[in-house]
């Protein structure tokens, strides 16, 4: 079989080659470069689309989070709430149990918490209400997370679909109780008067401290406890887990209960410490953003502090941009999207490198 020269194929223009594992320094360098490039690119987009001076554009992003003392506190509070939910889903994710139901788990905990405030408020001392709120929130979160886990362990149902469906149930449960609790049928509950968490300096500090403690505890749980080790083994290979005699079903259920309990605490903190009320929108998509936080940090609690900071910082910065330059609120989403694209894209260059045709010819011996 001969091939005429017309059909003679050239070596591909570029190829993707797996890297042998980069030193830590280089991976940090690649990621930093990605963030820098992302901001430069965003500045360019802003210049073209809204004719913004790049300097004032970056200033606006920075001021969104650090402009005033109040903004700094809000930044820290938002990080704490997002981080708390991200920490909650992490044990399950380490087990490769794709729980996308944190949204519903936190919401149902928030509902349970608000329920305690609504029914017990005024009848018993605040301390008792708060204790009941905490327990009810944790239990609600555990039930919402535990059900899919039991079904997964028993009948191998798909946990992603199951937890997603549980989100809708939680939303409609909240809608139901809002109608029940508002006599006029306005469905707007307003601020509940009793069972507020104590203020420490301001309303944010307590939440920030609690989440900081949870971060450390979860780090220890995942890396230094026998439970955490079992989670890793089940996540890496169920076959290995069975081979060494780990009860996989038990680990799945137990881990999801831990996840659910943490989601419960998140719901408790949001309602008891911040909102003092509940709506269908109380969690506001944080349950999904948390997946990104956890994943970007490779399921490591320490790194999750950084990734949640990044996401909240971008969000507030983008909001500031849209305010300063008086443009559509869709623009901030474009900015966040671009920056995430660069960051996630940079992970590719950490695992792989591009070899071009010219390079391949000269440099293979290196």
């Amino acid at each position: 079989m001969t091939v005429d020269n017309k059909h003679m194929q050239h070596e591909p223009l570029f190829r993707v080659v797996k890297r042998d594992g980069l030193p830590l320094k280089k991976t940090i360098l690649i990621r930093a470069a990605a963030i820098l490039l992302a901001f430069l690119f965003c500045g360019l987009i802003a210049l073209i689309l809204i004719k913004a001076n790049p300097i004032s554009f970056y200033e606006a992003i920075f001021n969104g989070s650090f402009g005033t003392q109040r903004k700094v506190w809000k930044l820290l509070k938002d990080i704490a709430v997002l981080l708390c939910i991200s920490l909650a889903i992490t044990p399950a994710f380490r087990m490769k149990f794709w729980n996308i139901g944190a949204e519903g788990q936190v919401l149902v905990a928030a509902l349970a918490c608000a329920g305690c405030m609504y029914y017990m408020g005024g009848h018993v001392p605040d301390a008792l209400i708060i204790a009941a709120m905490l327990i009810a929130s944790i239990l609600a979160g555990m039930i919402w997370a535990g059900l899919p886990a039991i079904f997964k362990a028993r009948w191998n149902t798909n946990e992603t679909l199951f937890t997603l469906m549980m989100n809708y149930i939680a939303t409609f449960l909240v809608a139901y109780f809002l109608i029940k609790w508002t006599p006029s049928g306005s469905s707007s509950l307003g601020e509940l008067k009793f069972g507020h968490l104590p203020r420490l300096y301001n309303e944010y500090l307590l939440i920030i401290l609690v989440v900081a403690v949870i971060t450390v505890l979860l780090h220890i749980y995942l890396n230094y406890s026998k439970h955490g080790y079992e989670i890793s083994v089940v996540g890496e290979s169920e076959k290995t887990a069975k081979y060494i005699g780990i009860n996989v079903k038990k680990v799945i259920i137990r881990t999801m209960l831990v996840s659910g309990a943490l989601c419960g605490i998140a719901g408790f903190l949001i309602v008891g410490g911040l909102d003092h009320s509940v709506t269908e929108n109380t969690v506001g998509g944080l349950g999904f953003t948390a997946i990104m936080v956890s994943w970007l940090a490779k399921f490591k609690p320490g790194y999750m502090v950084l990734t949640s900071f990044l996401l909240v910082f971008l969000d507030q910065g983008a909001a500031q941009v849209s305010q300063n330059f008086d443009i559509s609120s869709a623009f901030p989403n474009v900015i966040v999207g671009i920056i995430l694209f660069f960051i996630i894209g940079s992970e590719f260059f950490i695992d792989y490198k591009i070899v071009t045709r010219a390079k391949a010819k000269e440099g293979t011996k290196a």
Partner: protein
Amino acid sequence: MNKTIALELKNVSKYFGSVAANQHVDLTLYKGEILAVLGENGCGKTTLMNMIAGIYFPDEGKIYVDGEEVVIRSPKDAFRHGIGMIHQHFKLVDVFSASENIVLGVKDGKRFALRNVNKTVKELCGKYGFEIDPAKRIHEMSVSEKQTVEILKVLYRGADILILDEPTAVLTPQETSRLFDILRRMKEDGKAIIIITHKLHEVMAISDRVAVLRKGEHIATVNTQETNETALTEMMVGKKVSLNIARSEPVNPEKRLEVTGLTTVNADGIRVLDNVSFSVSSGEILGIAGIAGSGQRELLEAIAGLQHIDAGSIIYCDPKTGHDVNLRDKTPLQIRDLGVRLSFVPEDRLGMGLVANMNITDNMMLRSYRRGKSVFLDREKPKALAENIIKSLDVVTPGVTTPVRRLSGGNVQKVLVGREISSAPSLLMVAYPVRGLDINSSYTIYNLLNKQKESGVAVVYVGEDLDVLTELCDRIMVICSGRVTGILDGRTAVKEEIGLLMTKHDAGTREQEG
């Protein structure tokens, strides 16, 4: 003889990260010849062939087909140049018939008509001596039939250069000789054939020339008639290796494990183990021989408490207390809690025996992490054990914190076997412990097993290389389709006898059908 070059490789190299899989390889293949590519596992045979077949792209070097330089970027390109590869792991659609699989992906511009395909397939069968029913579905086929479909698939596309990657690994001796007849007929038809193998006697039987690879480099290509097995081994491993495995006489054998009437039925209702009975004594190595998938895995997993059992009993005789314990329907944890000192090196090292992404220390803990009442892990002892194993078994690794997936096959196996032996077992089961290992690593493993045997451990060894089985084991149990077809004395057993027992059941059913 007038020889035309069909395929030529010049200075071909391929790197994976910093590892050179192939370095500056030159290879020439003539029309109408069978070239054997010989080398130890991991020497780069398959990588080299994958570059010819368009699966990998070479980092440097040139490939010529019929004297013209070609660039092969995909399997499709390879087919355009008349190159077809039959992979070790079949790539067939189970629910399709032979013909449907053969025609899948062929774009010849003709209207698709299965009848024409059947006709062409039948012609090919007649020409080269294949025996196959074009309408039979893949999932109803035996391994050798599936292989036939793979070869036909390549021929149907008009391949003139055929590459077979370890085609005999899954075949019985009888099936192998049938395959060789077919290959000879294709050769007479002018096809150029490359066959990858590491079985020396097959190289001698089938090939015209032998290309030997070692550590990714081409050592030499010699005419088969002018060489012998010893010379080839030397080229393959670089130095002379004695093929003798030491075998001591069992000392004070006592019954350690007695399996009676063990039967398990899988989800399809097939008896993967059918009334299996045998016993193992302390201080002996019991070999288990059989074609891949005859129930070896299920047997070991049943003993280890990982397999559902439908009938029979597994009695473990505790050397400390002298009591008998029935292991049937116990979980691995219950078996451990009963004080049964059972160690198991499974076939799937990185998927079952170890966690690929975890480091060596954490893999050491797999068996022992539960010890103690603390809720926290103790990493000190596993770390010491890891260091000890690295030192005593010469594991090549940057350190104890290296993930095991980064280690080479032999080192992975040393880590696994080292861990399993470290718990001082009284019963040790190993499945294909030297698969994919080079000769030196293999001998490390044989020596470890022999040491265990001498210290009074009952060893169950599932293997595939009959030469090793007959040299290492005290007794050899042969299984076929889940049944025990014979238990032989390892000192007197001959390979041909074992080979026959390995296919005894198949022969029986075939006669019944015919």
